[in-house]
């Protein structure tokens, strides 16, 4: 049986590209992602660079996974709405998005999710603060953090939009 190890690590939602880079670094150094959980990553030993790992927010459509499988991608697992995929590096470069319109659409889904959860926290936080519950502060901190994340995602979207003014 292959050697296995579990790593606990935390990434903010808006750092998904950093998370993806880290997972690919692991694959390059001979550790292929086989299982994901909340802040938990399980790796099996593999040939260094045997896989390319990608993650994305799921479009919420079950047929999508079948569609991906047809293109040679393997589904590793999901955490909430995020799906983790890998493909044999021998099949060539593996990307989920190949143009800026679809990259922007993907960032748009993430932005919407952050906005909804952020506003929910804001409302709960304000209501709880008026009720004199100390818990309100926690929701307000969460809301601030999520709004910061939303700002980061919007920053990424703006730079893509700028590219799109001149090129496809």
């Amino acid at each position, binding site marked *: 049986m292959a050697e296995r190890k579990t790593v606990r690590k935390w990434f903010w939602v808006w750092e998904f590209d950093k998370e993806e880079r880290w997972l690919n670094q692991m694959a390059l150094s001979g550790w292929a992602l086989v299982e994901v959980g909340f802040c938990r990553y399980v790796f099996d030993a593999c040939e260094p660079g045997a896989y390319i790992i990608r993650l994305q927010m799921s479009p919420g459509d079950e047929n999508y996974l079948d569609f991906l499988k047809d293109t040679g991608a393997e589904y590793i697992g999901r955490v909430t709405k995020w799906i983790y995929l890998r493909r044999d590096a021998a099949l060539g470069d593996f990307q989920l998005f*190949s143009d800026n319109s679809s990259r922007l659409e993907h960032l748009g889904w993430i932005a919407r999710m952050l906005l909804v959860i952020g506003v929910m926290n804001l409302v709960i936080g304000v209501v709880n603060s008026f009720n004199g519950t100390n818990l309100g502060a926690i929701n307000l901190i969460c809301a601030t953090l999520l709004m910061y994340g939303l700002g980061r995602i919007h920053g990424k979207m703006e730079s893509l939009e700028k590219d799109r003014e001149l090129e496809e």
Partner: protein
Amino acid sequence: MNNDIALTESTYYILLSLYEPQHGYGIMQRTEQLSGGRVKLAAGTLYGALSSMTERGWIRPLPGESGSRKKEYCLTKEGLLALKNELDRLKELVQNGETILGGENDG
């Protein structure tokens, strides 16, 4: 039908690949082959594009054969028209470029 729209490169090649019915992976391969390996459609991009084009009525899924989970798509009349309009637009672009730049490329 709006004649002034410009299709994206992905949209153009997806429609062109669907001149004959294809499933998703077939579209990716056909596009890569047609463009001599230059245009590689990624799965997420293609999946999103297929659903927007279906909504627009440019393509439609073919009734699936039982036991096959691979959905095949084909071009509709509207899709063919969009493709022909785009071809006219591209011809105009090429013609103007050639007229103005003339022999610049020959060097």
